[in-house]
């Protein structure tokens, strides 16, 4: 009924499916500060989009969506512009090194398995660490209250590396060595290039655990970085003729509405709540990649789509609860 012709991909496609995919990834993107390529690309592919067009179209819509989400996060004071701009330099160099490493592994015939196993280890490792961090936060808070001078806090201990120049980030409230920041983004950029992904899902935790940003600022600042990688991805895939512009615009409309919901939800859910949902999503993505590794591609695609939709419902429910509570409090006053 809502079928439209997509001239560049040369196929008929249901416009509602495109808007719905955009919407669900918009909610996730606005809430977690990720581009969501790991959801959109398999989803488009599962519905019959050729893979190269799926990647290019996805990157194009991510660029537009990240503008919408970053603008709103900025209004909420969640974007550290200085940190975001510095992140671009390290990330770009890191991506290129990662891509060169993959080329080298390809020549040795080892790229496929090494990249996939690294991806799986990263997703499961990150997810389990964040779950552990969530599970032990109360214990750490109690210890901090009992021994205020012992240096035990809610945040996990970060290594301090004070090689000058030191940079102060007022928005995040941290002072940190330029080299720490550069190496963190070089590393996350390297992972992006090595794994062939946008990198939001490991840059966001890196901003929290390695740089020391508050969770909401990590989400907003990561989206600010995604904006630049999305713009570059959109252009480079456009030059290669692999962006289906009509599909990208339809997805952007859905994603923009979803992003408004996702960003607003950040206001109602505490930092550790965001981390818990993020950890669950990352582990589900890890299971999806594992299914693909065992040649269960269809199950893997449906797994990631169902996980994304399920998480959207949870986020929207939590936001609705928050709105109700806020209205009740206002009415009480």
């Amino acid at each position, binding site marked *: 009924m809502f079928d439209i012709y997509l001239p560049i991909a040369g196929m008929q496609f249901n416009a509602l499916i495109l808007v719905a995919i955009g919407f669900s990834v918009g909610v996730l993107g606005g809430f977690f500060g990720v581009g969501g390529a790991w959801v959109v690309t398999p989803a488009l592919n599962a519905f019959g989009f050729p893979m190269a067009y799926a990647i290019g179209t996805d990157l*194009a819509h991510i660029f537009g969506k990240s503008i919408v989400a970053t*603008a709103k996060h900025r209004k*909420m*004071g969640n974007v550290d512009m200085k940190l975001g701009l510095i992140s671009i330099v390290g990330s770009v160099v890191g991506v290129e090194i990662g891509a060169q490493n993959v080329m080298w592994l390809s020549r040795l015939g080892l790229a496929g398995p090494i990249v996939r196993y690294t991806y799986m280890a990263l997703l499961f490792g990150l997810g389990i660490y964040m779950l552990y961090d969530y599970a032990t936060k109360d214990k750490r808070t109690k210890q901090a209250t009992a021994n205020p001078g012992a240096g035990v806090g809610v945040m996990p201990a970060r290594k301090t590396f004070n090689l000058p120049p030191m940079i102060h980030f007022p928005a995040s409230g941290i002072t940190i060595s330029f*080299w720490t920041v550069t190496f963190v983004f070089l590393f996350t950029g390297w992972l992006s290039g090595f794994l062939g992904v946008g990198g939001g899902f490991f840059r966001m935790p890196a901003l929290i655990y390695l740089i020391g940003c508050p969770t909401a600022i990590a989400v907003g600042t990561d989206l600010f970085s995604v904006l630049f990688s999305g713009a570059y991805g959109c252009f480079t*895939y456009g030059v290669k003729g692999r962006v289906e512009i*009509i599909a990208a615009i339809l997805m952007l409309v859905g994603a923009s509405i979803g992003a*408004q919901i996702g960003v*607003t939800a950040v206001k109602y859910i505490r*930092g550790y709540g965001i981390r818990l949902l993020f950890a669950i999503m990352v582990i589900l993505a890890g299971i999806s990649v594992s299914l693909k590794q065992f040649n269960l591609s269809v199950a893997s695609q449906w797994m990631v789509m169902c996980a994304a939709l399920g998480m959207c419902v949870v986020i929207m429910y939590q936001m609705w609860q928050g709105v109700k509570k806020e209205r009740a409090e206002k009415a009480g006053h």
Partner: protein
Amino acid sequence: MKKIWVIIFNCCLLGLPVLAWAGGGLDVPEELGNKVNLANLSGINLFFARYYNDNLWAYAAIVTVLMGVVGFAIALVTDVILKMVGMEVSKIEHHE
């Protein structure tokens, strides 16, 4: 003396990525010869398809600018709508 060592160390650190990059060499992007059949196309589909067939660099520039403009426009419009329905957001306190 300490300052000199800091400067030298900083220079070495800055040089590392450049060395790693130089070790690989860049790949030439693959040439893609796909052409869209313009017959039966009209309006906006024809507009995009023509650029796609004639000049991929122009097509890429149009796509990138358009996505940015559409994203920006949607952000402005939704902002106005949300203000009207009383769901305006402002600076929040960061709770962990």
